[in-house]
């Protein structure tokens, strides 16, 4: 197809601002899907995605649109993940586009996530088409939102499209704006092949499936291709595009978007951001911006039932086929037995993996407190990276510790500022920017230790702002910090799976809060149980769980022995779900108690 009639775009929106509904509506209006065929929010395919209302995997849908000028255009809608954990994937999806719809809720306004992705899009030189959505709601204030877009993002918003994806209002205006305002792709169909991988996943029948945007040249069936990062070659066995059903084709030329499979066995051969080129006639340079994805958050995953260890390993291997951002290696805990140290992009990513393991593979899991990867310089000058508290070097052997730092953008309303600033200070943040962005809203840019985010930051931010704060962050280097390892002893035995790395100044308070929480989570045993938090040999906090005082069934009513048996069986079953460490039965939740240690929330 002549690139002049191609438009590649994505939709930037905050969760709930109407991205999926708008995507559905575009599909419907262009006839890619009849209303009758249409399932709600077809682009979000996995159950989990639908439940959480976020998109985890990017997708690309081709729409054919007959514009008011009489020509028919190929519009490729490239869907992007909507969460801060997946910034890199977002940037690759944006790189595949020439423009983006910036969808802003007419009453909520611009959120941090939207802002971050818009900056990302501007960085990739995309044409931004502002869309003010939900204008049919009584609380809609399109003028204020327009002003905000101009002020905060610095984009002219006079010609923002007013729309209601729900009712279909303004959808044609959006399509016209895509055609008129977003530039056609620039690449040359005759240059050597360069195609950008912006998504890939594992299919049990076809192997890895790649979504790619052809920048230069042509991708053809049976073509021998080379994947740049690993230098491996494959033959294209399937080629096509989604509309939204998969439609096979023989060729994708410069400017077009589609999928391919080539008998690729592992997802790590087809990494997001990598360049596909022709094996015989390769391009001289890859496309810019490729980075191998690095996990930032680490946690131990253990089966509750130790005999399920093999099952868990198989499940992790299967998940990894489909998720190159996730990695794992075996680890061994004195408390929990055999498990795996796993690396994730962020907390949400961790939760998704955890839920998929429990839901799809039916494995009961214990997850240990998430942490980050520290750079530790030993006294002999060796530098080691430590992402597991149990591997923390002896303090006498540490010269210096560096912790990962992020730049975090928070957008909130003025009235919550006090609480949020307090939280950011408490989390060891350094303020880099403080800006009123109109409409009673404030933008904060803080440098924060990543370690503070993986504890309970999201929950705290949410409650401090009653949900009216949005957050975005990216890694911004390392800084030297006095971190220490905080151990927990239960009945005198250190529980390795409960150890955490904390800032020295917080160790005492965290230790206290953690022990207090554990006291509430660990049920009374038949004997008194001492809980202690310690740094090295120094005990910083202590609590006792008093011995169980009573566990008695009173009545034997009318000779109902079966009720008695059932109650006793239920108690026994409850114990089975706990992990026995030494003499003490510890419930699963206790291992995550560390997460909530700073919240001060009693529940």
């Amino acid at each position: 197809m002549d690139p002049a009639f191609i438009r590649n775009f994505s939709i930037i929106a905050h969760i709930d601002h109407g991205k999926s509904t708008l995507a559905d509506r575009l599909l419907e209006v262009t006839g890619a899907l009849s209303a009758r065929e249409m399932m709600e929010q077809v682009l979000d395919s996995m159950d989990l995605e639908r439940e959480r209302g976020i998109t985890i995997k990017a997708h690309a849908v081709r729409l054919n649109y007959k514009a008011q000028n009489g020509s028919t255009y190929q519009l490729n809608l490239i869907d992007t993940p909507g969460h801060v954990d997946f910034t890199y994937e977002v940037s690759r999806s944006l790189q595949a586009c020439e423009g983006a719809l910036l969808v802003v809720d007419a009453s909520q306004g611009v959120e941090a996530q939207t802002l971050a992705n818009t900056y990302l899009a501007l960085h990739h030189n995309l044409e931004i088409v502002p869309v003010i959505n939900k204008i049919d709601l009584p609380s809609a204030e399109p003028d204020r939102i327009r002003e905000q877009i101009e002020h905060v993002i610095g984009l002219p918003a006079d010609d923002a499209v007013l729309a209601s994806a729900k009712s279909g209002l303004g959808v044609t205006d959006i399509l016209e704006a895509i055609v008129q305002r977003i530039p056609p792709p620039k690449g040359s169909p005759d240059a050597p092949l360069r195609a950008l991988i912006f998504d890939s996943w594992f299919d049990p029948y076809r192997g890895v499936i790649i979504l790619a945007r052809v920048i230069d040249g042509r991708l053809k069936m049976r073509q021998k291709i080379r994947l740049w990062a690993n230098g491996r070659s494959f033959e294209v066995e399937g080629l096509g595009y989604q509309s939204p059903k998969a439609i096979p084709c023989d060729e994708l030329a410069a400017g077009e978007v589609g999928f391919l499979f080539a008998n690729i066995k592992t997802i790590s051969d087809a990494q997001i951001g990598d360049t596909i080129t022709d094996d015989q006639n390769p391009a001289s340079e890859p496309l810019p911006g490729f980075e191998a994805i690095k996990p930032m958050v680490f946690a131990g995953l253990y089966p509750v039932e130790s005999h399920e260890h093999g099952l868990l390993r198989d499940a992790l291997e299967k998940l990894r086929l489909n998720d190159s951002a996730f990695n794992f290696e075996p680890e061994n805990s004195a408390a929990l037995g055999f498990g795996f140290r796993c690396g994730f992009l962020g907390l949400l990513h961790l939760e998704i993996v955890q839920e998929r393991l429990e839901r799809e593979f039916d494995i009961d899991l214990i997850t240990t407190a998430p942490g980050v990867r520290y750079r530790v310089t030993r006294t002999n000058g060796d530098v080691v990276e430590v992402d597991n508290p149990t591997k923390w070097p002896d303090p006498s052997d540490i010269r210096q510790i560096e912790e990962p730092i992020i730049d975090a953008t928070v957008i909130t309303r003025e009235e919550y500022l006090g609480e949020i600033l307090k939280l950011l200070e408490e989390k060891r943040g350094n303020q880099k920017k403080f800006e009123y962005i109109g409409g009673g809203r404030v933008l904060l840019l803080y440098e924060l230790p990543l370690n503070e985010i993986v504890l309970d930051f999201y929950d705290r931010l949410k409650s401090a702002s009653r949900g009216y704060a949005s957050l975005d962050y990216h890694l911004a280097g390392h800084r030297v910090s006095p971190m220490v390892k905080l151990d927990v002893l239960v009945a005198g035995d250190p529980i390795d799976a409960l150890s955490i790395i904390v800032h020295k100044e917080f160790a005492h308070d965290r230790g206290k809060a953690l022990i207090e929480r554990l006291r509430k989570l660990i049920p009374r045993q038949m004997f008194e149980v001492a809980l202690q938090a310690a740094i090295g040999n120094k005990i910083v906090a202590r609590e006792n769980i008093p011995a169980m005082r009573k566990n008695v069934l009173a009545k034997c009513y009318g000779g109902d022995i079966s009720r008695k048996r059932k109650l006793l069986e239920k108690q026994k079953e409850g114990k089975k779900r706990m992990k026995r460490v030494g003499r003490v039965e510890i419930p699963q939740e206790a291992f995550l108690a560390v997460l909530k240690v700073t919240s001060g929330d009693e529940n």
Partner: protein
Amino acid sequence: MPGVYISFPFCAQKCTFCNFASGVAPRELEARYLRALEQEIAGHPWPWTPDTVYIGGGTPSRMPLDALSRILGAIPGRPWREATLEAAPGSITPEAARAWHDAGIDRVSLGVQSFVTREAARTGRKHTAATVAADVATLRAAGIANHNIDLIAGLPGQTPASWSESLDWVERLAPAHVSVYMLEVDQDSRLGLEILNNGARYGAADAPSDELTADLYETAVDRLAALGIPRYEISNFARPGLESVHNLKYWRLEPYTGFGADAHSFDGVLRSENVETAEEYVRRVESGQPARQSEAPANRDEERFFVGLRLMRGVTPEPADWARFGAPINRFIDNGLLESDGATIKLTRAGVLLSNEVFSEFILT
């Protein structure tokens, strides 16, 4: 000899602590229920003659006197060794007491729960200590001298002082038998659910801690022993010779037959139960279907322990039991929850309070 249990699951109101399948129902259902009960009893083949009868509820003292008389008239074996009727304090008239006596009742179990007006009122009871005293006098005058008084430790607002007030009344009324239950906090009662949800209705916020409840219970154990009413079962206390003959059958794995909704039976081999709700019971009996919904063989090897150990006299394990349960038995002897004279094992004072921990080790299936 076997016993008979008759269930009357109707009450004037549902008490906050009640976690049984009983409650308030339309009068019309009560009448149909009583007819169904008569029909079920009439259809029973009586392969043996019972020597005890126990009418429980619900509040069977609300049963119309003619119906009670007809029902007891259909049970063979009169005069029985023991025939108990459960009663709510405040509902006992001299006529009723005489009619009960004439129908063969010789023992009444009073669901007092607390002699402290405020505590009783919070559970939904309207009686006072004076009401109970009057009831006891009425029963004695009618010739029913054998009484049980139910008490609950752990009711909202209870304190050591208020508990001792209730125990003072036990001393004053001098019953033959006392039952002391620790409040069961579970989802099945309104109060239990409220406590679990950290609510405040029914005084849930004032519910005593586990410690206090256990202390109150132990105070009762000592006080009742001093009054000559020692504990013979985890929740039951009696003057020697006046233990409940009927209830002992449950703990000794002796047979009994139950009639009515949610009534349980044990023929020495099989345990069975009737359908749980009064509505379904009535529906089944009226349409000629059996009221019994399930039966399964009793597991005597396990029940001997988790039921038998409720009796203070303990259980004498046989060699096969030692092979099966020797390890937990010895562990509990070591940690002081069980004691043994070499032949018999029994719960210690501490073991009673943690008896579920002990019992669950005797459940293998």
